[in-house]
């Protein structure tokens, strides 16, 4: 029942947002739905909902974990959106890169798509049917495409085009992979098996190995495109940089995790079939490639939203690596996914504040952020340390757990490469982001004595949560992550 409510609430509210006339009412529908969704998810923690529709909709540990991250981030982002939409207004804006005037897409469409996006992500987290999972993940792409095109200018149109084409093609391959898995599960008599994860796993040892492995590769390529694993990530920096900051925060913090879930479900199946090492090897390679690729582009980056986008590629690489290493690293990888969502969501929201004050995305144009924007500037610096895995933030703990997994497994080369790449990204991001924070703000930037609450409180909350996870991981969360990790071949974790 709770699952149905969590699905129906954002769907209905999203459809309503398209027809509601008043801006004020519509924005409150957004925030109200986000809070309602959060409350429903919190209720799922208290009492896990029963499976619905013959096990099609099941909230297991993995699903609940990702649903919770999504819901928290969405609630915070919607509070930010309240102020953002207010400041944005309806008048045409001057494009600060090309100097032309552009207008925004209708606000009703933006809010409606945000809510439908939440509904699609809820479906991703709550379904256990491989076919329905595909339908839901593709639907997240479609619901989020109009968000990227909110500012109607050349660059956002280009980014949206790349996003929808590359992701749709990638995800189409995942559909082929899903069919391959269906073939692998066919019984000798020609009867086909159900595509429910539980059914597939219960007879996993019987599955045809060749078809299952081929299917996994297609699923990995397909969902990996959406998750932003290099070298399939080419849409990601463009889309994250051109979307409004609220949408970037959700794309990076919530959408990438949905694609991750697609990969984790596939890995779950391989693990049950006794083929876990096959998937893990591929994940380790893709993870390290993503980290290396991101490091190269982070170091020479001149656009701060693209900088954050490449950092997402790096973090998805860490998560893939952690799942690939198995053992304690799986726990680290899932905790890393949680931490990344919180910190990256916060950084994208702050980047929106910087963008509004400096009217530029260039890392050279922004100077003295701490002086010009006392709260956002400090948050920006704190975010730098949080995203690069420095203590006392949660990322430190999770990145350490991934390292421990590599060392436990005796994989010294992987551990060395991992540490080296983390250091490179730290140096690259630190140089750029500290330079933006320090010094005197340039001409024409009016120091804000007081920043709007709606602009600084949401990122502050996210940073607080990330800090909390660094000093204290609540027992219930640790237990949930541990049981989520076990289904994808993880081992126990003891601090």
């Amino acid at each position, binding site marked *: 029942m709770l699952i149905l409510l969590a699905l129906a609430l954002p769907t209905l509210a999203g459809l309503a947002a398209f027809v509601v006339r008043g801006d004020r009412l519509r924005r409150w529908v957004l925030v109200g739905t986000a809070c309602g969704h959060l409350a429903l998810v919190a209720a799922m923690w208290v009492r896990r909902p029963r499976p619905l529709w013959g096990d099609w909709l099941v909230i297991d540990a993995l699903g609940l974990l990702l649903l919770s991250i999504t819901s928290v981030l969405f609630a915070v982002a919607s509070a930010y959106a309240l102020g953002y939409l207010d400041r944005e207004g309806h008048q045409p804006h001057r494009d600060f890169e090309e100097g032309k005037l552009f207008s925004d897409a209708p606000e009703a469409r933006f809010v409606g798509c945000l809510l439908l996006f939440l509904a699609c992500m809820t479906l991703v987290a709550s379904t256990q049917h491989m076919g329905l999972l595909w339908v839901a993940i593709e639907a997240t792409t479609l619901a989020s495409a109009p968000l990227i095109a909110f500012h109607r200018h050349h660059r956002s149109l280009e980014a949206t085009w790349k996003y929808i084409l590359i992701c749709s*093609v990638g995800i189409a391959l995942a559909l082929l992979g899903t069919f391959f898995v269906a073939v692998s599960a066919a019984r000798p008599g020609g009867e086909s098996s159900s*595509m429910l994860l539980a059914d597939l796993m219960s007879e996993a040892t019987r599955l045809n190995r060749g078809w299952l492995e081929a299917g996994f590769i297609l699923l990995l390529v397909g969902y990996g495109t959406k998750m932003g694993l290099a070298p399939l990530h080419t849409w990601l920096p463009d889309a994250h940089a051109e979307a409004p900051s609220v949408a970037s925060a959700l794309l990076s913090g919530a959408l990438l995790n949905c694609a991750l879930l697609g990969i984790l479900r596939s890995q779950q199946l391989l693990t049950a079939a006794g083929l876990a090492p096959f998937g893990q090897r591929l994940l380790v390679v893709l993870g390290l490639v993503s980290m290396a690729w991101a490091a190269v582009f982070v170091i020479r980056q001149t656009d701060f939203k693209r900088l954050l986008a490449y950092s997402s590629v790096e973090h998805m690489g860490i998560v893939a690596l952690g799942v690939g290493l198995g053992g304690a690293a799986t726990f680290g990888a899932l905790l890393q996914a949680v931490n990344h969502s919180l910190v990256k969501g916060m950084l994208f929201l702050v980047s929106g504040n910087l963008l509004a004050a400096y009217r530029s995305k260039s890392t050279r144009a922004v100077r003295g952020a701490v002086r010009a924007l006392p709260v956002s500037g400090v948050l920006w610096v704190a975010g730098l340390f949080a995203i690069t895995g420095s203590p006392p933030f949660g990322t430190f703990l999770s990145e350490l757990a991934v390292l421990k997994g590599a060392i436990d497994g005796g994989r010294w080369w992987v551990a060395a490469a991992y540490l080296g790449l983390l250091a490179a990204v730290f140096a690259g991001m630190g140089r750029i982001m500290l330079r933006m924070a320090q010094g005197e703000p340039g001409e024409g930037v009016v120091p804000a004595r007081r920043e709007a609450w709606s602009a600084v409180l949401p990122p502050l909350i996210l940073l607080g949560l990330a800090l909390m996870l660094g000093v204290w991981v609540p027992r219930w969360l640790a237990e949930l992550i541990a049981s989520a990790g076990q289904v994808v071949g993880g081992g126990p974790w003891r601090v």
Partner: protein
Amino acid sequence: MGWEIDPILVTLVLVNLLLLGGSRLVTCIRLVAVQGVLLGILALLVQVGWSPTRAVLLAGGSVLLKGVVFPRLLSRALRGAEIRREMEPYVGYTPSVLLGLAMLALTVWVSSRLTLPLPAASHLLVPVALFTTLTGLFLIVARRKAITQVLGYLVLENGIVTFGIALSHEAPLSVELGVLLDVFVAILVMGIIVHNIREDFDHIDTDRLASLKD
């Protein structure tokens, strides 16, 4: 059942080859529509023995969307534009057709080596499905115009659906309808974006969409 569906499968192959060699956008849109209709008939023939209502529903939806709605949507995205042909594709038409024949040979060879745990309705189904999928991928990477890339996506999706029709007889109706709905929305959104790109840029050459880079 092979004698009924083999002619359809052979026609699908011919449509793919025509698409690889075709330069007029209107013709390409029509060819993809024909492919969609053929796919609907295929679904009807293969699945009608399993569950008639479901086969009729899916085939009807597929024919209506792919045969009627999509061509209209895509033609509308082009209306009023002076864009008639795919000029200067990355890979020329004759080499495209030759490569297509090579891909066909490859998929036939690959399929002959695959062992299917299921009895398929026709031994041609798997090679044709894979060939259509490859044709779609090829069109996406070898053509410049956004509209041709959308067509490539549709062909890719048609290929994958052919595979699904052939092998997963009992994929639940809700999933199949969900897939159809997703494709519909995808084409709708892509059509709108192509339209906006045309209005904003006065062209739909994707290689000239290159302002975003590192």
